């Protein structure tokens, strides 16, 4: 029991640095994407099993909270991907780069790259959301 508590409160009681935060973010984004993916597989599968339900599902995706969620999802996937690549590169190709200076710098770069990659699709998606859900830019 004590270990579970430590597991949950450790992040506030231990002042980890970049590594700890990128690990948490990697884990949260990974699990977030997985949750979405599970749902997404099931709702898409309705096209074969219950085609009539599909439009209901899609309708939910079209609401603005879902649209915002997708914006976040895209960030999660980019961050998780870039960070996963960073880890895989250090692990598989160049273990000697696992040193403090590299770790700190590369964690920040990862965040930055994920952010830059995310911006264009995010702008597009937010624009679409504003058009469809809020009738801006002349609406649809």
């Amino acid at each position, binding site marked *: 029991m004590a*270990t579970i508590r430590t597991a949950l409160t450790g992040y506030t009681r231990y002042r980890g640095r970049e590594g700890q935060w990128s690990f948490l973010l990697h*884990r949260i984004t990974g699990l977030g994407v997985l949750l979405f993916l*599970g749902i997404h597989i099931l709702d898409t599968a309705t*096209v*074969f099993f219950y085609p009539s339900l599909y439009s209901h599902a899609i309708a939910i995706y079209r609401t603005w909270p*879902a649209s915002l969620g997708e914006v976040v999802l895209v960030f999660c996937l980019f961050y998780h*991907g870039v960070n996963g690549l960073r880890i895989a590169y250090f692990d598989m190709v160049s273990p000697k780069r696992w040193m403090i200076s590299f770790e700190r710098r590369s964690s920040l770069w990862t965040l930055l790259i994920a952010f830059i990659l995310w911006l264009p699709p995010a702008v597009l*998606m937010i624009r679409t959301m504003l058009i469809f859900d809020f009738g801006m830019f002349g609406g649809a």
Partner: protein
Amino acid sequence: MSTSTIEVPEVPRRVKVPSNYETTAWRWMRYSGVLLIPLAWIHIVLQDAIVSAQNIDLNYVAMRWAILGWRIYDIFLLSFAFAHGMNGLRQVLMDYFSTDSARRTFAWVLFVLWLAITGIGATAIIGGVR
């Protein structure tokens, strides 16, 4: 006493380590992850940003799956992404449940879930829009 510099022969050291599930899983996370970069990124940028849910409906899905390439693409995406994610979840749970019985239990649950959902997804992709 010796002042010469006889190099000690460098025999490359190798050992045989029987490979086990965890080792394979670790490797899998990295290889599948790298593959997922094009697969997942293209998918999500295309569907969510460029096409967007606003323009997706049964017809769109039917049109897309009319092209065999997209079906193969989606099959790949499904198998890699979901297996990667489910194994990730299994690893996360292993951090929090350390008894063998708990680990066995959730490993089975996750396996069944993975099989079922992958099966459903694959059926849909192969079966197409009805």
